[in-house]
């Protein structure tokens, strides 16, 4: 590991140089190359740009404004003040190493670097890098989940007040053309539809953004186009967020590979603008439409047929199965099969109030609420097991879960797929079984707690959701405790160090 540092002090004759020497010596003692730029009274020789480029992290041991700080933009850093570096240089080196390992990117003051910071440490092990690529995608996706999900939930809330108990069903049926041509500012239902449609559009970006920024983490800017395109294709062929994970990695490595081709000078100029996006998008398109798309479509058809053949048998078992499908990929193809199965059942005419079709709808809705609610519960009950981004996302997941927006759990599942999916599978499955057992029936296709007035035996319905939520949250806590996430640990190490360092920095 290599570090660069800047030291300075008010007088510029003593501490500046003591800090520099102390950091260099402390680095040498643990085998870390530290280059220090002394911005003191005896003039300062700027660090060689190559040394800065090679450095993994930056130490600011400066009591004065760091000159030309934008040279270090985007690198992990610690800011400790000069005195700390003189008194405890080994501690400062350790904090810098922790920051590098955590990959805390420097906030870019004045934004001289336009690119968003990636959090990927190129020297880390394969497992860590895969996780960091995933986290890059997830962290850019989270605001879309929050904005889109909350808009949709608000749409349902407004619809319930404006349109009564059937409003939540009707709001999803209002076409976009109505908003364009006949929007009535005094109509609550129009406002509800506006919120719902805007949220739905924001939601449409979810998988493309995930895929695009995973590719960005891998290949930098050249990865963006194939990543976004791949994510959008994944949505188009119904491969959902699991498909988006695949396209993110596929696009990233494709773009990285193409960008390393040795090409004639004349072509080099158009590589990033034309050649890389063109070729990589086309290849991603072929793979998704021709290679992966068909198997996913057959999978969906097969599952649908299978479900239809099952519906006559034990209903509790069917509930558990549908619940597991809802919890498996959170808005992806398998989830969609279960949901479509339920919604198409609603269209059957002349059903009794407690027909199996309505009970299936209630089952699917309850199970779809479990995962986001469980993630919200787990991330607030055991903060130490979740990254800062996940804790923030957990707060939004409460509302998303209550509104039957399973996608609220995707940021958690994308960051740590198997632990979250296994937990969600079990909890949602239990919920599905319970709903069938208590006999709740539901004729609204969406809405979560906002359509509670339409659900028969609402108490049983809520109880089923709560049980599944607690089971999933408990499982995810147990699984995450068994093998702590290194990113979370590094974040906490840095938090603790900064808590110690900051008050002492003068």
């Amino acid at each position, binding site marked *: 590991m290599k570090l660069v540092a800047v030291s300075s002090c*008010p007088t510029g004759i003593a*501490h500046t*140089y003591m800090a520099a*020497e102390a950091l260099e010596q402390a680095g040498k003692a643990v085998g870390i190359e530290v280059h220090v730029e002394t911005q003191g*009274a*005896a003039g300062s020789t700027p660090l060689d740009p190559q040394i800065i480029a090679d450095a993994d992290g930056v130490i600011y041991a400066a009591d004065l404004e760091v000159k030309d700080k934008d040279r270090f933009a985007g690198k992990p850093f610690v800011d400790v003040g000069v005195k700390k570096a003189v008194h405890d240089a080994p501690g400062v080196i350790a904090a810098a190493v922790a920051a590098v390992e955590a990959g805390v990117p420097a906030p870019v003051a004045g934004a001289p670097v336009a690119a968003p910071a990636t959090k990927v440490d190129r020297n880390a092990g394969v497992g860590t890098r895969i996780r960091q690529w995933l986290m890059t995608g997830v962290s850019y996706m989270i605001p879309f989940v929050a904005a889109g999900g909350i808009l949709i939930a608000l749409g349902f809330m407004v619809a319930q007040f404006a349109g009564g108990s059937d409003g939540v069903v009707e709001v999803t049926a209002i076409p976009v053309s109505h908003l364009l041509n006949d929007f009535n500012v005094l109509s609550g239902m129009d406002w509800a539809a506006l919120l719902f449609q805007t949220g739905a559009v924001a939601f449409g970006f979810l998988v493309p953004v995930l895929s695009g920024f995973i590719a960005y983490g891998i290949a930098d800017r050249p990865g963006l186009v194939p990543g976004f395109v791949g994510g959008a294709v994944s949505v188009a062929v119904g491969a959902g967020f699991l498909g988006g994970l695949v396209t993110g990695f596929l696009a990233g490595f494709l773009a990285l590979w193409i960008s390393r081709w040795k090409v004639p000078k004349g072509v080099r100029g158009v590589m990033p603008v034309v050649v890389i996006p063109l070729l990589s998008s086309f290849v991603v398109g072929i793979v998704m439409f021709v290679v992966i798309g068909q198997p996913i479509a057959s999978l969906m058809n097969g599952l649908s047929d299978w479900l239809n053949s099952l519906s006559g048998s034990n209903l509790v078992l069917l509930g558990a199965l549908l619940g597991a499908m809802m919890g498996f990929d959170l808005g992806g193809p398998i989830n969609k099969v279960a949901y479509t199965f339920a919604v198409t059942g609603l269209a059957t005419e002349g059903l009794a109030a407690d027909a199996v079709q309505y009970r299936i709808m209630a089952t699917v809705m309850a199970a779809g609420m479990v995962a986001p609610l469980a993630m919200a519960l787990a991330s607030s009950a055991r903060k130490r097991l979740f990254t800062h981004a996940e804790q923030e996302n957990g707060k939004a997941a409460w509302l998303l879960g209550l509104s039957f927006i399973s996608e609220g759990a995707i940021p958690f599942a994308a960051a740590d797929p198997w632990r979250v999916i296994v937990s969600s599978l079990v909890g949602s499955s239990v919920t599905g079984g319970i709903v069938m057992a208590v006999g709740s029936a539901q004729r609204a296709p969406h809405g979560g707690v906002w359509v509670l007035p339409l659900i028969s035996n609402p108490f049983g319905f809520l109880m089923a959701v709560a049980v599944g939520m607690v089971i999933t949250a408990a499982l995810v806590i147990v699984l995450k405790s068994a093998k702590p996430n290194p990113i979370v640990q590094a974040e906490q190490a840095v938090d603790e160090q900064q808590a110690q360092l900051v008050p002492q920095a003068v």
Partner: protein
Amino acid sequence: MSTPLITPDLVAVDVVAADRDAATRQLIDLLAAAGRVTDAEGFHADVRAREAQMATGMPGGIGLPHARSAHVTAPSLAVGKVPGGVDFGAPDGPATLVFLIAAPDSGDAAHLQILAALARRLVHESFRQSLKDATDAATVAEIITREVVPS
């Protein structure tokens, strides 16, 4: 470098002082007597101002008052050994070795290199220990002159 950083008459081996201000003043008087500081009171005020910004005590019993001042004629170091100790605000207790660094305000960069080299040496435990072990002014001045070489 026309004027050496330190000479034996800038070393006091047995300083007794009630506080850091008094200890600093004794060293300033040495610099003034050697003609390196033109206005002892004025320079003391500059050192106090620096000390007020941030205590200069370092772990290992070191006090490091210093200032750039218009009253200084050449980069200079005065050293005081304080057997009884005097507090310089270090986290681990009073200082037994006090370095007073005087830098001219108008000194150009090359001129100040010697002080940068001194500061870098001060970080090394072996350097500090050899000064603590030295018993007389001539030895202290000789060690510093030998060890502190501008890079």
